[in-house]
């Protein structure tokens, strides 16, 4: 739901970028190649350019405070600009909502803020905050809700009370519930307009099962079923210090801030610890799946499977494999399918790695209708090459260098360090997980990559989804096997006459 919303607010986006290869991770200063420069001092090959040692750098760790009621607070001073930004992450998210009320947590997060507090309407909050160039916004994810705020330092003492008021006295006014429901329903009505949105949504259902809480989608009926009482109950159930992690970054004194926050939150009772529900993840059913979209000239192809979680000892080898196979500019998929064959602008993917459940292994590409089958062939050929072949030492080195040399960008700002720490705290990972990550990557060998490729990539077990315009395909999809058509017709609202709630 959130993605759809984001999409709509960027509806006019219209820019053309070459390609985005984003790497995420580690550093090591490899021995610099011997400087062998000409007298002018200008290198004539990149290999001649000296690479000195990286400046010493110790990232500033946030101050961690745990209150007796269990609430964890991280304080990260950053005096560069006169700003203070904060986030509270609260346990419990959309994966907990009842199947008959999918969309409830998204609606909750929306109306938590727009519905105002007992003493102030959401509109009054809007006026107040905008006048101070401040923001307080709630959001949601599968496992959490968030309340985040940002203000100039000079307005912090006026803005933070709004946060507290929203935590303690949210009102969830009915008019804003109605408005949000109308917007959510409009988003449902728009969800089949864009092939990438269709492909993302339907392939996730194929990977996890259509009823899985990470995959299921809101419908008119599930939105209709949500009541104000549901939102109040959810708030009561989750918003308690024992379920919250607060992170604050900016221009403040942390000793002073700690005192203030202790006074505000320390007096509150811990609340019931949030116990997440057990979730079942179905294995994808292998085969070819097809969604007809006859107003496009490009197909979106997705191949999906279940991946791993980050506790898995193979995590590091998988990350290296992902980098060399489907990661950046020099990955096999990019070089073969985009650069050499010119089949796609967008192609890539990898084995999914989530913190507390199996991520989705996903490989995707967009190719013209007339090369849809050729695109699937090309992806499969690359899988076969990786699974049946062996990784070359040079290829391994490139992938590891890419992760290790860019490692510094994992913690090159105080805000990044803070959000990493909050994430580890939330998922129960050790605070030095980043360091372990670096060490883990360094140890990965070519044999490890070969092994994990065979262990986690099973093209024959993957679900292959094509969203596109069949009349222009180069080959009938049935030449790949039995084709299962997916009906994406949006279930219509029940007759309006029954009245609303």
């Amino acid at each position, binding site marked *: 739901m959130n993605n759809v919303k984001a999409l709509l607010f960027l509806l006019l986006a219209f820019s*053309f970028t*070459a390609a985005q290869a984003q790497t995420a991770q580690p550093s090591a*200063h490899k021995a610099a190649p011997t400087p062998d420069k000409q007298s002018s001092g200008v*290198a004539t090959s990149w290999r001649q350019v000296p690479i000195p040692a990286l400046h010493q750098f110790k990232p500033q760790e946030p101050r961690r405070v745990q209150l007796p009621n269990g609430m964890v607070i991280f304080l990260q001073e950053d005096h560069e600009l006169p700003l203070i930004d904060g986030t509270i992450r609260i346990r419990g998210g959309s994966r907990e909502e009842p199947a008959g009320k999918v969309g409830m947590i998204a609606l909750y997060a929306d109306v938590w803020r727009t519905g105002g507090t007992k003493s102030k309407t959401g509109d009054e909050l809007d006026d107040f905050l905008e006048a101070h160039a401040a923001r307080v916004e709630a959001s949601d994810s599968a496992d959490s809700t968030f309340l985040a705020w940002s203000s100039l330092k000079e307005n912090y003492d006026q803005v933070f009370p709004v946060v507290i008021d929203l935590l303690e006295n949210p009102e969830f006014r009915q008019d804003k519930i109605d408005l949000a429901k109308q917007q959510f329903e409009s988003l449902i009505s728009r969800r089949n307009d864009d092939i990438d949105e269709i492909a993302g949504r339907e392939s996730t259902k194929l990977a996890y099962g259509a009823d899985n809480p990470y995959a299921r989608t809101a419908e008119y009926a599930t939105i209709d079923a949500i009541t104000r009482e549901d939102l109040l109950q959810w708030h009561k159930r989750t918003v308690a210090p024992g379920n919250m992690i607060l992170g604050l970054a900016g221009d403040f004194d942390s000793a002073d801030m700690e005192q203030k926050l202790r006074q505000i939150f320390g007096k509150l009772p811990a609340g019931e610890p949030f116990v997440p529900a057990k979730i079942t993840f179905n294995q994808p059913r292998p085969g*070819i799946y097809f969604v007809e979209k006859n107003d496009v000239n490009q197909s979106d192809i997705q191949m999906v499977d279940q991946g791993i979680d980050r506790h898995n000892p193979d995590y590091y080898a998988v990350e290296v494999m992902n980098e060399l196979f489907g990661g950046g500019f020099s990955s096999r998929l990019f070089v073969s399918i985009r650069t050499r064959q*010119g089949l796609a602008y967008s192609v890539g993917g990898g084995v999914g790695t989530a913190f507390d459940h199996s991520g989705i292994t996903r490989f995707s590409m967009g190719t013209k209708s007339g090369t849809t089958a050729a695109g699937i062939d090309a992806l499969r050929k690359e899988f076969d090459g990786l699974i049946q072949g062996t990784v070359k030492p040079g290829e391994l080195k490139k992938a590891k260098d890419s992760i290790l040399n*860019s490692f510094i960008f994992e913690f090159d700002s105080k805000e990044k360090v803070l959000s990493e720490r909050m994430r580890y705290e939330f998922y129960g990972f050790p605070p030095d997980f980043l360091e372990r990550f670096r060490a883990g990557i360094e140890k990965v060998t070519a044999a490890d990559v070969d092994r994990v490729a065979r262990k986690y990539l099973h093209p024959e077990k993957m679900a292959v989804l094509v969203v596109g315009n069949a009349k222009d395909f180069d080959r009938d999809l049935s030449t790949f096997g039995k084709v299962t058509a*997916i009906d994406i*017709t949006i279930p219509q609202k029940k007759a309006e006459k029954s009245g609303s709630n």
Partner: protein
Amino acid sequence: MKIPFPRTLAFVILFSFIAFNLHAQDVASFEKRITVKKLANGLTIVIMERPEAPVFSFYTRVNVGSVQEVAGITGLAHMFEHMAFKGTHEIGTTNWPKEKVALEKVETAYAAYLKEKLKEVNRDDKKLAALEKAWQEAVAAADEFVVPNEFGEIVESQGGVGLNASTDRDETTYFYSFPQNRLELWAYLESERFLEPVMRQFYKERDVVYEERRMSVDSSPQGRLLEQFLRAAFIAHPYGRPVVGWPSDLKAFSATDALNFFHKYYVPANMVVTVVGDVKAAEALPVMEKYFGRIPARPEPEPLRTQEPPQEAVRTVLIHDRSQPLYVEGYHRPDFRDPDDAVYDVLADLLSKGRTSRLYRSLVRDKRIAIAAQGGSFPGSKYPNLFFFFAAPSQGHTAEDMAGPIHEEIEKLKDKDVTDEELESIKTRAKADLIRGLGNDQGLAFQLGEYQALYGDWRELFHQIEEIEKVTKADIRRVANKTFVEPNRTVAVMETEKPKTPPAGPAKGEQK
């Protein structure tokens, strides 16, 4: 999991309101950390010292965009941007002298093929097939010498992140971030790619770019709408043409065209290179001068001649589409150097920023006819452009339903002064947004580079806020009355086409 190539949704309007306000002493603190130098060849270097972490970001901004294209080569500015990742005489080749010869043969073969293909009379299909084969064989022969994507591979394996580039109507930009100890390596790589770019694998990359067109325009409802909208709004000025290019041109232009375009527009005087991060100007400047100084000075290209003539009647585009409805209308407005530029910025904020904005409150909150509504300037700023109003109708409403309520808001702007609170609030936000944009290397590099390129002085970034500060209620009414008049309006409407047969699910995996 990494998602390799998301479309960068860098929408122009979001950047048009980068106005800022800091106190004099803050500007002074930037003065101390910023060094600007124009090299002998005309290239401008901007360095800002910001030693927060041992990294730096850069932003190369070239004063060339799709507005420089003429019929037959639309999309070429963007195509060249892709080619700037293909390497040089040193990078991406196993044997440059031989590859050079092979690439020349490709061009000769392609020219012969294209000439036959475009013949208006007496085209010989047999000959055409033979010429196409000869061209493809020449391509295959040249490919023998290619080390694919070596440029990107070096950047990535050396720790570069965010490697990307972007082409718009007004400018082409290149950027990524590196660990601080790779400054010299970066200076080598970045200067080298504009010193001797090689058009290798050009025709495969042209296919890639065509896929980008299919993704962003042909297969995207809003892409289809906006292409038609701009086409209608501009009849003479190149803002009316798609950045990605027309299909015919994407299937015709050559590597030779791309190199000619490069030589004409990628002249050092047309480039600003900005570096922000853990660098010392005293050390970085000589390094940058050494490498970027290698690019030979060339004459500056001629300025654009064509101007959009005044619009004298409403223009309307109506698209019947299978998608849900969308509405956009636009009014011609002057370029960024106009004295009223800041007034348009204030209007954009007033209409669009947050839940207190007028379009949100009217169309979304009160009338509940739209799920999103906004206004702002588009699609460029260097030349007279458009002030647009956009809305996505909520379920059950047509695109046409948007027109009345949008015009009501427009009339309000013309007839009634904005309140003191509204105006004050906008000015406060302008100041805060400026500050929020100063907290990271990449954002700073983008902004400093943009202002240095557009105004010839990065300080304009800070002075802009004073212009916002000066905007009065009367200015807003005057500009609204001047701009939002019917003959100056272009409307593009996308309405949902009623399916002729019920939209049953796909019959089966049948095709062809």
